[in-house]
């Protein structure tokens, strides 16, 4: 395929006007020994041939009709509206809105995104997004060390293992120390060098953490220690108490559940919010409302840019340049499409369906629910034979739950089961039937 709109005649005309004899002459500044003859790649393809090629590629992936797999990426329904809005090429073929007056549409949409996230989370400020939940958490950790001028952060048990790894890499880059803690030893790990405590809720294992118990203790021992919460499936905010009402300093989340689809894990959306007092230390883009200089009309504009890399350069607290604008637009559309009623209903179904599966599973011999705290749409269950469970699920076109030992090898025969509003009664019954079969086989085998 070819998107060059010139023919040879036009090219010759233009070369003439420029004053060179050939296209090659335009590259006269490049040393001759660097010029290559051609790339060793196949010839191009037309549209139909290209599509055929991709059909072959997608056939090597399996699309399941139902899923019990979560682990940081979730199967929720995406209204058709979302794709409709993000397919408007006035949005998706535009660039960062530096010329505000020609970009009022997108700027307003992102301002609305900041607003809706702020309302959903009850946090004072939301930025225009970061790359994803994992990098948002890492940048929050760095931000806390800049605010407090301290060099240590505490990672509370239960953060998604991939998120922990990302935080670790970012902290290594900046010589920030990491301390690991759990409920038993958190208090003793606190000291004057700690900039922040990072935790996830609902956590990787499904538990909803009630950090308010700890928050008071933490702030007594280290008064200006920040408390940072991460969340991988924010649909729970349709029903759970928002972080802004639980005195969280920085709240980050993965916005994939809000209209982005699975898409092999990317692009995602790094929701990033904080208390008002940290505004000027926040990384990422911010859209603000303002008025005309010589008029009364309201408009939207990129603001507080002096925080960002293009002005602050090596003094910037973050190098982030893009946000995930189109993903933020998708999330805004999703939240508007569902509205408060729909969002509450989605969250309710997630909780109810997951609770139902938990309850029924625990009645089957050989299965033990391991969570001691309330859960949202994921939970841990010890199985009689996890490999057998997984194989039977696949045979019945159910995407099996996550085998936890892929992240924690010592946790054998434990599954992380995820149930969302997309799980029909049929799929749930099939799953429970499979669970019974596995249990029976184990008993028979013994």
């Amino acid at each position, binding site marked *: 395929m070819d998107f060059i709109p010139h023919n040879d005649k036009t090219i010759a005309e233009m070369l003439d006007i420029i004053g060179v004899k050939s296209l090659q002459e335009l590259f006269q500044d490049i040393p001759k020994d660097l010029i290559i003859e051609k790339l060793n790649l196949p010839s191009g393809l037309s549209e139909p041939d290209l599509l055929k090629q991709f059909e072959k590629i997608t056939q090597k992936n399996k699309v399941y009709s139902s899923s019990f797999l979560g682990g940081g990426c979730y199967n929720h329904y995406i209204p058709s509206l979302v794709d409709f809005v993000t397919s408007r090429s006035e949005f998706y073929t535009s660039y960062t809105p530096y010329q505000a007056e020609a970009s009022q549409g997108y700027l307003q949409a992102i301002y609305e995104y*900041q607003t809706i996230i702020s309302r959903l989370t009850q946090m004072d400020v939301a930025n225009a997004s970061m790359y994803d939940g994992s990098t948002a958490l890492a940048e929050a950790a760095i931000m806390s060390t800049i605010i407090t001028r301290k060099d240590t952060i505490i990672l509370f048990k239960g953060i998604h293992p991939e998120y922990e*790894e990302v935080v670790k890499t970012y902290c290594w880059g900046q010589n920030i120390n990491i301390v690991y803690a759990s409920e038993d030893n958190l208090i003793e790990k606190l000291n004057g060098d700690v900039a922040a405590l990072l935790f996830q809720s609902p956590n990787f294992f499904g538990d909803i953490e009630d950090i308010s118990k700890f928050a008071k203790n933490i702030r007594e021992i280290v008064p200006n220690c920040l408390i940072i919460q991460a969340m991988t499936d924010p649909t729970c905010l349709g029903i759970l108490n928002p972080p802004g009402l639980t005195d969280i300093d920085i709240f980050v989340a993965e916005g994939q559940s809000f209209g982005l689809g699975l898409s092999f894990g990317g692009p995602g959306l790094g929701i990033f919010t904080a208390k008002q007092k940290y505004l000027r230390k926040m990384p990422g883009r911010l859209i603000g409302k303002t008025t005309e200089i010589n008029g009364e009309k309201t408009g939207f504009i990129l603001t507080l840019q002096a925080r960002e890399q293009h002005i602050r350069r090596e003094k910037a607290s973050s190098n982030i340049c893009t946000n995930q604008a189109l993903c933020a637009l998708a999330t805004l559309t999703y939240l508007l499409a569902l509205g408060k009623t729909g969002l509450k209903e989605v969250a309710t179904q997630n909780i109810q369906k997951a609770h139902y599966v938990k309850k029924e599973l625990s009645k089957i011999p050989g299965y033990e629910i391991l969570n001691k705290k309330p859960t949202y749409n994921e939970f841990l269950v010890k199985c009689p034979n996890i490999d057998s469970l997984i194989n039977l699920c696949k045979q019945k076109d159910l995407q099996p739950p996550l085998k936890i030992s892929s992240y924690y090898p010592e946790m054998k025969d434990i599954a992380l089961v995820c149930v969302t509003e997309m799980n029909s009664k049929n799929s749930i019954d099939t799953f429970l039937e499979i669970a019974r079969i596995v249990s029976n086989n184990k008993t028979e085998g013994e």
Partner: protein
Amino acid sequence: MISNIQLIFDKENEGNQQNFVPKMEIDQTELDEILPASLLRKDLPIPNIPEINIVRHFIRLSNKNYGVDTGIYPLGSCTMKYNPKVNETIAKLPGFTRIHPLQEENQGCLELLYHISKQLGEITGMDGFTLQPAAGAHGELVGLLIMKKYFESKGIKKQKIIVPDSAHGTNPASAKMAGFSIIELISNEFGEIPLDQLEFAMQDGNVAGIMLTNPNTLGVFDRQIKEITRIVHENGGLCYYDGANLNPILGICRPRDMGFDIVHLNLHKTFSSPHGGGGPGSGPIGVVKELIPFLPIPCLISTEKGIVCRENDNKSIGRIKAFWGNFGVIVRAYAYILALGSEGLKKVGQIAVLNANYLRILLQQKYKLPYNRICQHEFVLSDQGIPNDITTEDIAKRILDYGIYAPTIYFPLVVPGALMIEPTETESKQSLDYFIEVMNKIYEETKQNPELLKNAPQNMPVKRLDAVLAARKPILHD
């Protein structure tokens, strides 16, 4: 006073459309048996809005927004080329959108990631790639962390990075995030790096390497590039290539041959994935063979069993993002490379440079061009000499009045009142001629009718906005 804008929140009604949630179907339990009341929220201030109102809202907003599909978008350093629509069809195939990152049956996706690394390797000359970084700046951070790990593995401590004064702001910011400090070199009158300054800076002994883009942000190809990379290597440093300006050299020359050890690419610039209004992007990193062990996890290799993850032996810098990178963006780039093929990619470089020089030759007849030589994909004008105190900002705002988008302004910093223009290869001659006509008209206006510029824009939904007020009293949400 009726406001000129209507936020979506102003369109709330108490209607209760329940169109997007399937049936519950299972027996419910009392909520207070599942969750304690203290965990439940009392209030959810998200509006309920009928679907038709949402649609109209966004259609109207899109009418107030300008994209490449609207007209020429000559933003320097951004490569605003046409985004092929077939890429959208491909990226939306259920065989991609419905694949979970943690599922096992994913060879289609892994093969795609592996094959695009090979293609990018051929295009840049680099030996190994990671597709993990989510954006160019993210890629820069990864590249610098690889440098850091490389020196650590040799037991050497290097704490400084050299950048030219023409560098994009992300370069020094990324260096800082990786724990380095900056040495800045001042470009000479040709826009190139003075070799003596470089030699002197390298003698410090503490320099991990240099970050460069070539062609640079002035659109100029640094003819001494091989000398530069040689000097850095001889003094024990590594060379990092910022691939934001790769478009003009596609199929013409390769960063590896110039002597670079690490390269980042912007799939959303050079490889036609849409900019999305500011993301999502994708910033893959390519490295020479010696640095492959340090690539972030997961790193893909080809075996008889298919494409699998390389074992993590702790040489890697670690993980820099959850899952597999911005897969949806990568799919589009892969489609683009397959669609264009070897000849198509070379043509991109040739015509990008043709279009830029065409504009350069014709615009410099009126506007000041500080670096007056053959440019590559972009060139930089200055507002010096423009009468009546008209600034670059005024010119940019007036361009909007003619229904097209303005070039990048006030970057690079080395040119006062910079106006950085990159047309890309997908603009037709008519489109370029219209841009020239507009610029010439505006030039006349600076002499005859300066108030038109001072008060610009007049034809947009709003006039010039108060950035100072927005920064002094930030209102970030309603």
